[in-house]
Every structure is written in C-alpha cells, then in structure tokens.
C-alpha cells in the first residue's frame, strides 16, 4: 500500500506523484486532502488530492519542496513506499451549478484547483480559470486546465508568459468587463487569496478560499490548525480547508504560520545532511 507508482518532475521544485491508495481514491472528493508521513521520523504534512482515479485506485499529489518533510518525500523514488498516508480529509468543495465561476490558482495552488475546475464544469458552470506564477518556469498544469476550463487566463509576475501582472489584475478586469460572476474560488499563497477577497468584496461576489494553516493530526484533535472565520474559531482540517474568504481573519492566519520558522530551517539542514546534500 501507499506505493508511489509514478513520479514526474514538473519544474525545479514541484513534483507530481501518483500513489496506489484504492481506499482513498474510492472516497475522495474535490477539495479534500491527505496527510503524508513520508518516513517514520518525518512530520505529518497535509497535501491536496490533485486528482484521483477510482478505477485504477490511485491518487495524484503535486507537491512543492519547501522544507524538511517535503524534501524527505522527494527522496522516495517511484516504486518506493510512503510510510503513512491518511485521507481523504477535510470537507469537500461545495460543487453546484452557480452559473459563472472564476477559479484562481497561484503557485502550487494551481494544481490544487484542478479537481474543482473539473467538477464545476461537469455540473454545468461556465468556468473561467486564472492561474499565475512568478515566471513561466513555475507555471504548471496549463495544458490540463485548458482542457477542463471554458477559458484559461495566465499571468506571470515578470511577463515571461501570459499577461504581466497578478491573478488579481485579471480578476479586476473580468469584473470591470461587466460579466456577472456568481462565485470566485481562490487557492494559493495567503497574500494572493487575501487580495482576491479584497477585490471581490466591494462587488459582493461570494469568494471561497482554501486555507493552509499548520496542521498536525488533521482529524480535528489538536487545534493547531485553528483559524478565525467570522469571529469564530474553526479547525481548518475538519471545518475547512475551504471558507468564505470575506469572513477570514488573514492577519491571524499569517501570524500562526510562522512559529516554527527557525526550527524548520534546522530540520531542513538535518535532512539535507542525511540525504547527502542532495
């Protein structure tokens, strides 16, 4: 179980793995995630189920190497096994026919929106997908998303692909064009999600974001993932990870993401030494 049956490099830091996990594939829905413990001594980290195949019994995960545990995950080759894999977790995305939906993905969030785009389109929505990255080398999933979206818009910070600018600029333009938008779904770095919410709020466009606080058990038992939504404490792992973006206290989220920064560096140094400076 938990065997990595396929592994591709998407760019320098982002990898796609397909894992044999029939019980997870069977139950998975868009918007849900898994907890991965690559080796016995590693952390429990949450990663979105970017795709699943019920027939083959596989799930697909796209992960970006940012620290020690993602580095350890990367050290497992195709054919190797992940020590522990738990899922599907979290409340699935609410998929219904809203009308016109703008789905926004930034950074590794681009991979995370794929199942939602597919499902929203399948149920009859007009789906406009907007993706953005710092430069063209960091853009992922462009082909896959263009197939399942009605329209795919691309932005890069440096203009090396698509429009020069941010995904929020594209969002502003769609709104300015007078097109009626029924829902915005934004998944990516916290600043991106926050800006998207600021853009839509004056227009009263419902905006759903997928929050990524630090998680531990991811089953609702520790409260590490607590976020403030509409003045109430919510556990992102079970109540979310998707929430109404206009209700989210982003400042609180940002503050709660940083407590272990210095230790994360030490852990990464330790792992790099173990893996022989790989």
């Amino acid at each position, binding site marked *: 179980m938990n065997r990595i049956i396929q592994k591709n490099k998407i760019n320098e830091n982002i990898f796609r793995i397909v894992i044999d996990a029939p019980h997870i594939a069977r*139950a998975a829905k868009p918007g849900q995630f898994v907890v991965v413990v690559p080796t016995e001594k590693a952390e429990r980290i949450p990663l979105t189920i970017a795709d699943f195949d019920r027939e083959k019994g596989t799930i697909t995960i796209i992960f970006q190497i940012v620290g020690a545990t993602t580095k350890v995950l990367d050290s497992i080759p195709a054919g190797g096994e992940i020590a522990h894999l738990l899922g599907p977790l979290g409340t699935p995305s609410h998929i219904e026919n809203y009308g016109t939906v703008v789905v926004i993905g930034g950074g590794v969030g681009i991979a995370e929106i794929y199942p939602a785009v597919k499902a929203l389109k399948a149920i009859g929505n007009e789906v406009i997908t907007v993706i953005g990255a710092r430069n063209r080398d960091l853009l992922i999933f462009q082909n896959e998303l263009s197939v399942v979206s009605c329209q795919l818009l691309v932005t890069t910070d440096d203009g090396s692909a698509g429009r020069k600018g941010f995904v929020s600029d594209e969002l502003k333009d769609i709104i300015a064009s007078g097109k009626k938008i029924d829902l915005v779904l934004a998944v990516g770095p916290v600043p991106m999600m926050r800006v998207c919410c600021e853009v839509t709020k004056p227009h009263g466009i419902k905006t759903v974001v997928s929050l990524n606080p630090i998680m*531990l058990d991811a*089953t609702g038992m520790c409260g590490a993932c607590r976020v403030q939504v509409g003045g109430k404490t919510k556990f992102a792992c079970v109540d979310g990870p998707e929430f109404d973006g206009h209700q989210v206290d982003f400042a*609180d989220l940002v503050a*709660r993401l940083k407590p*272990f920064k210095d*230790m994360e560096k030490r*852990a990464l140094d*330790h792992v790099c030494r173990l893996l022989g400076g790989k």
Partner: protein
Amino acid sequence: MAEKKIRLHMAERSVEERVKDFNEVPQGYTPEQAIEEAKRCIQCKNPLCIKGCPVEVNIPVFIKLVAEGKFAEAAEKIKETNALPAICGRVCPQEEQCEKECILGKRGESIAIGNLERFVADWARKKPSPAGHKATLLSQRERVAIVGSGPAGLTCAGDLARMGYQVTIFESLHVTGGVLTYGIPEFRLPKAIVNLEIEYVKSLGVEIKTDMLVGNVYTIQELLKEYKAVFIGSGAGLPKFMNIPGENLDGVYSANEYLFRINMMKAWQFPEYLTPIKIGKRVAVVGGGNVAMDSARVSLRMGAEEVYIFYRRTQEEMPARIEEIKRAIEEGIIFKILTLPVKYHANASGWVSEAECRQMELGEPDASGRRRPVEIPNSDFRIQIDTVVVAIGNLPNPLIPQNTPALKTEKWGGVIITEEGLTSIPGVYAGGDIVRGAATVISAMGDGKRAAKAIAALLD
C-alpha cells in the same frame, strides 16, 4: 499474624534525577515487597474491593496467589478479566476505585491493589508467555469492526477475538493505543508496555489498520455491509478552548497539540524526528486534571525553568490523581490556585508574553458538589510567561456523529447508548470517552468488555 495498618510504598527516583529524562518515576515492588504487601490482605468473604473495579478483577484471589509467591498464576487470574494490567496498575485512579472500597482503608491504609497488579503484570512480562495464553483460535466466526485503538477498542477487540470472532480495528492515527500512546507521557506509562499489550491483542488474531479515519474513508453504514457489528471507541479527542483574547497567539497550545507533538511525534528528539515544538522558559498550564499535570511535568522535562498550573479552584477540587499532584509538587511545579486567565498579551513578534489573570474565591457547591469558583472584582494581575498549554478538557470526537446522522448523541456530543452499549443504530455499539466524555482508562475498558459481551450475544 499481626495486621499491618500501613501500606508499602514503591521506591521512586529522586526528583533531581527524574526531571532530566522521560523514564518512569516509581520503580515498582521487589518480589519480597509484593509478598509482604499482599499478606496484609485479610481475604474478605465478601470482598468490597471487587465492586470498586469497573472490570471486576478477582482481587482477593490474585493477591492470595501473590502472597504465596505464585506470580504466574496471579497474572493469569488478573488477565481473565483485565487484558491490560500493566497499564491499569499504573494509571487507574485506584484511590477512587478498588482501593477506595477496600475494607482495610476504614481502619488504616487500604491494600495497594494497583501496585500489586502492576508488579504481577511486570513480572509476567519479563517471563516467557505461558502456553495457556496462546490464542485458542476457535472456528472463525463473524467479522466485527472496531473504531479506535484506545483502551475501549483494544479491550472490545481482545475479548471478541478470544471468543473466535474475526476482528479488525480501524485507527485514524499512524500509531495505535489512543491516549495511552499520544497523551499519557512515557514517564508515567512507558510506551514499551503499551506496545506489548497491543502486541498481545494482535496475537489473539486482531487485525489493526492504521491511517483509517472512519467517517471519511468508510462510513459506519459502509462498515455494516462488511461487518456483522461495529464498536465505536473513538474517544474524546476534541480540545476545549476558553475563547479568551490572545488564545490564538503563537506559543499557546492545546494540551492535545502539546502532548501529540512531544509523545506521538517525538518532538523531544528533534531534529532526528522532524516535528518541532517550541517551549519557552516560563510555561503556564491551565487546568487541574491529569492532562494538566502531565503537560506541566512534560514541560519541566523539555527544559522549562518555571512551570505554573493555573487552576480556578483549589488543590482539593483538582480532578487529577492525588499521587500525580504530589509528584508534580515535588518536582517544583508552581500551583497558582484560584487563578483564572482572562487574556494573553504578546511581545513585538506576536509571541505570547504575559497572562492576565483574575483572582477567584470559592463560593457555594455546584452540581458536581465541588465549591464553585467566583471572580473577585478588580483583582486582575499579570504573570510573565512565554508558553501556554490549555488543558481544560476534551469533548467527544464529533467526526463520526457528524458523518452518521442516524447516530443519536447528547447535546454535549456524547453518543447515547443502552445498558448494553448499543447505540441508536442496530448492530452498532459504543463505549469509552466517546460516550462518557473524558473519563478513565479502566471505564473505557469496562465499556469495551460489556459491548463485546453484547455483540457476542447478538451474533450467537
């Protein structure tokens, strides 16, 4: 034989030594000590002690065997009703259960039943396992699913397996044992002992599947298609917060997160183990139960210099076990009683730096019979701290009830069961903390046993 009124205490490691590591504090009896203590038992015709034990260990008989030096037979006797004696001997609140009822307690000190149980189990553990306890696999009977590998689930599974049922435990975490593994720290309950007891349950033929969150992976209804009956022992995993300003600051943990990181993820061996934990020099633990004591004593061992317990009543009302309170005080934990935190303040980088507390006094007794804490007006004061652990209790795990509309629960979240442990869904039983709220290991085991009996009766 002159009746001795005073019980024999176990040797304990010195405070200076023990706060530096996670090894066990009490050292257990020697065989001579065990025999001496056992001989104090007057072998009552109508033994009250048994009535105090939720799983009805045959106390006089096993104690007599100890007094005669027949330790292996004593171990067999205990295991007839209690599959986890090395654990119960250590963590049962004996002073409120078996030992509270012991007749000798009326005129002196009750027999140290827990210490004797612990001795016998430890003695048996070090000997090769007697042939009589190999799983006598009967013809394979129906399949039963158990949710959760805490004491409730393990006991129910063990009992059903011994009756010949095919049992599968589904556990959501990547480790087994429930609170025994992730909650109660090593110095109070060594994990090697927990693992041995789990291995024993497995040796009976029980299959344990980890990383299986029931409700999400399979619903209870789906399990019922594959299994003839289901037992839910999913515990009280939902941490309570006080909802006061500053509780989301960095440096404020729920006790679950704190103990999870340290016990389960082994953060005390960082960076060999990759999960971090950050503990400052001055730790405040809020609460007065076993969880609070454990969090406070763990903090010392993780290198904190000053550790406070903030408790809104007095030491007398603390729900923690008396001997653990005693050990916490010995180790230098500072008890701030009649103290209620009302707000936490942060330093410039957003890390908790001060607790604002209100002074309390005791008023009239409340429903639980304990005197109620009342706030004293204008009594707020501040204490500098840099870590807070909120240990004010846990509620039943809400995940399965949320995913199982037909499962009836109390308003506070506890699953409703009958005398036999049956829930509102036919074939589905429940027990332990998911039913009682945060309770005890032995009551969870008692529930597991009772449900096993009921399930066997159902399937017969």
